[in-house]
C-alpha cells in the first residue's frame, strides 16, 4: 500500500477528470474505478469496433483489446485488468500485459503490498494458478478460486485431481478433490474442499473439507481434525501461530471451535464470518440467536439488539474495543456500533470505517439514488452521482472523499465536521 500518511491531505479539492468529456470521446464506457489515494479515476472504454482500452484520468492506454474486464486498482494503486486479443487472455497492469497468455484468466488477487498479482488460469495443461505470469507446473482437471498468502509465497486452490465421467457418483464418492499448494496436491482427497485460509506466517493452510456426505471438518496441511461436525464454514487462522478458528454446527446449533474444540458455550441458529480484533485478543462473529434475529457476538456474548433482515461483517476499531457492522431491518440499511444503530436509515450502506482514534465511524450510503457520506449517523450535505468509501486522515480530523458531481470527478479532503 502506498503509505497513506504520505497522501495529499492538504489540497482541499482537486478536479481530477471531467468524465462527462469521456462520454463524448468514447461510444461505450464501462464501470468506473478510482485509486485508493483518489488521484486517479479509470474505466474500460471502447475506442472503436471490437477495441477496448483503459482510460485513466482522460488518457488511454496505448494497447487495445477485443475484451477487457475486471479493471481494478491494486493496493499499490497500479491498475490491473483481464484482457483478450485473438482468443488469448492475459493480465494487464498499467498498460503492460503479461507475456504468458491463456485460454482464460479470472479472479484477480493481490498481496497486501500489491507487488504480486495472482489469477486463476485455464490453459492447455488444465487449470492452474499464475502469479505475475509464473504459473503452477501442475495443471488440474479443475481448480476453483484460490488463496494467496500475504507474503505471496504460497497459493492454494481447491483442485480436482481426477476426471469424472458423466453422472459418476461412485467416483465422486471416492473423493477427487483436494487442496493444491503451489501446484502440489495434499496427500489426501476429499468429497469437497472449500474456504481455504493461510496462516500469517504462510506455513499452514487450512480448508473446510467434507470427509463423508454428512461429515464436515477442517484439514490443515492435509491432516484433518479428530472431530467432525454436521457442517462447518470458512476457517480463519489466529493472527499469530497455527491455531484455527471455525464456525461449526453441532446438534444444538452453530458456535465457534478452535482446533476442533468448542470455545463458545452458547449455540446459535447461525454463526459465521468470525473475525479477530487488531490486537488478536477478541473474536467477533455474525450470529442469529433465532431465525430472523441477527446480531454480532463478541467473545460469545451478543449485542442486546438484534436486527430482522441481516447483519454484515463485523469491523473492529483500531484499538480493538469497538465493533461496528452494517445492519438491515425492514429492508432499510444502516450501521450499528456496539449494538446501537444509527437513527438514520438508507437504501444501501457500505462497510463502516473507524477513525484512527476510534472515536468516529464513517460510511458511504445511498438514499433516493444519491450517495452520501455519513459520519456517526450524521448525513453529509452533498448527494453525489457516484461516491467511493471515505478514508480518515492519519490524525482522524479529515476525510478523503472521492466523488463524482455534475459529471466531474473530484478528490476532496475536508474536515470531518464539514461533511
Amino acid at each position, binding site marked *: 500500500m502506498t503509505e497513506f500518511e504520505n497522501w495529499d491531505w492538504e489540497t482541499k479539492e482537486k478536479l481530477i477528470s471531467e468524465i462527462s468529456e469521456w462520454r463524448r470521446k468514447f461510444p461505450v464506457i464501462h464501470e468506473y474505478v478510482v485509486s485508493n489515494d483518489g488521484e486517479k479515476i479509470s474505466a474500460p472504454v471502447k475506442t472503436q469496433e471490437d477495441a477496448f482500452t483503459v482510460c485513466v484520468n482522460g488518457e488511454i492506454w496505448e494497447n487495445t483489446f477485443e475484451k477487457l474486464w475486471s479493471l481494478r486498482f491494486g493496493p499499490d494503486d497500479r491498475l490491473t485488468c483481464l484482457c483478450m486479443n485473438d482468443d488469448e487472455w492475459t493480465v494487464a497492469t498499467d498498460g503492460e500485459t503479461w507475456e504468458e497468455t491463456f485460454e482464460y484468466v479470472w479472479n484477480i488477487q493481490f498481496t497486501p503490498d500489491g507487488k504480486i498479482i495472482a489469477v486463476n488460469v485455464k490453459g492447455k495443461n488444465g487449470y492452474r494458478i499464475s502469479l505475475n505470469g509464473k504459473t503452477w507446473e501442475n495443471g488440474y482437471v479443475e481448480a476453483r478460486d484460490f488463496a494467496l498468502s500475504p507474503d505471496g509465497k504460497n497459493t492454494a486452490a481447491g483442485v480436482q485431481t481426477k476426471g469424472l465421467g458423466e453422472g459418476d457418483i461412485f467416483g465422486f464418492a471416492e473423493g477427487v478433490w483436494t487442496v493444491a499448494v503451489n501446484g502440489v496436491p495434499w496427500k489426501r482427497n476429499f468429497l469437497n474442499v472449500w474456504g481455504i485460509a493461510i496462516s500469517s506466517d504462510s506455513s499452514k493452510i487450512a480448508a473446510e473439507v467434507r470427509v463423508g456426505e454428512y461429515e464436515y471438518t477442517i484439514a490443515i496441511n492435509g491432516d484433518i481434525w479428530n472431530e467432525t461436525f454436521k457442517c462447518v464454514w470458512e476457517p480463519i487462522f489466529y493472527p499469530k501461530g497455527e491455531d484455527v478458528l471455525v464456525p461449526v454446527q453441532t446438534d444444538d446449533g452453530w458456535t465457534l471451535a478452535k482446533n476442533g474444540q468448542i470455545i463458545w458455550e452458547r449455540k446459535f*441458529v447461525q454463526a459465521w464470518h468470525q473475525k479477530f480484533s487488531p490486537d488478536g485478543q477478541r473474536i467477533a462473529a455474525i450470529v442469529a440467536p*433465532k*431465525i*430472523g434475529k441477527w446480531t454480532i457476538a463478541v467473545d460469545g456474548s451478543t449485542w442486546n439488539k438484534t436486527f430482522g433482515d441481516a447483519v454484515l461483517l463485523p469491523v473492529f476499531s483500531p484499538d480493538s474495543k469497538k465493533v461496528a457492522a452494517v445492519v438491515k431491518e425492514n429492508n432499510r440499511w444502516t450501521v450499528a456500533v456496539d449494538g446501537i444503530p444509527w437513527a438514520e436509515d438508507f437504501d444501501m450502506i457500505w462497510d463502516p470505517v473507524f477513525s484512527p482514534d476510534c472515536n468516529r465511524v464513517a460510511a458511504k450510503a445511498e438514499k433516493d439514488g444519491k450517495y452520501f457520506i455519513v459520519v456517526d449517523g450524521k448525513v453529509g450535505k452533498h448527494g453525489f452521482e457516484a461516491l467511493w468509501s471515505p478514508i480518515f486522515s492519519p490524525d482522524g480530523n479529515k476525510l478523503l472523499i472521492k466523488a463524482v458531481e455534475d459529471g466531474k470527478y473530484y478528490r476532496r479532503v475536508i474536515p470531518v465536521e464539514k461533511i
Partner: protein
Amino acid sequence: MYEFVSGPLVWISFIVFIGGSIYRLVSMFKLADKEKVIFPYMSLKYSLRSLIHWIIPFASTNMRRRPFMTIITFAFHICLVLTPIFLLSHNLLWYQSWKISWWTMPERTADIMTIIVIFTAIFFLIRRLVLPEVRFVTFLSDYALLTVAVAPFITGFLAYHQWLPYKTMLILHIISGEIMLIAIPFTRLSHMLYFVFTRAYMGSEFGAVRNSKDW
C-alpha cells in the same frame, strides 16, 4: 358397579381428558419452539383466514368438490360435539354434582342428532370399506376409533329408549363415553386438539409467507 362407573371413573376420565389434552398441547408448543422454524412464521391473521375457510361448510374447494361428504362430515361433527353438551340427561348430572346447568336441547332434537351421528358413522364405515383410496390407508385402529366415537351414541340411544336392559345399557354407555374422553388426547381423535394448529400453521405459511390461498 354403576356407582363406580358413574362416580370415580367419570372423574378420572375427565381428568385424563382435560389433563391429557393440556399435556399434548403443551408438549406440542415446546417441540414447536425447539423446531425453531415454526413460530417465526406464524401469523394470526392468516391462521384465522385459514380456519374460517375450513370450518364453514363449502368454503373450501375440496368441500365443494364433494358436497355429500361435506354435509356428512359437518353433520357428524356438529352432532357429535353438541349433543352431549346440551343433552338434558347430561345436564342433570352436572347439576347434581356441581350445581351448574345450562341450556338443554329438546329431547327429540337430541334423539335426532344422535341418530345422525350413528348414520353418518355408518357412512364413514362404508366409505372406508368401499373407496380404494380410503381402504388403502385404513387400519384396524381406524375402525376402532370410529367405534369409540360412535359407541356412546349407540349405547346412549339404547339406554334412553330402554329397548335393552336399561341398567346394563347405561353402564355400557357411561363406560363408552369415558373411553372416548380418555381416547381423545392419546389417539388420532386428538385431531380435535390439533386441528386449529395444523390449520393455523398451513394458513400462515400459505398466507403470510407464500402469498396464496390454502383452500
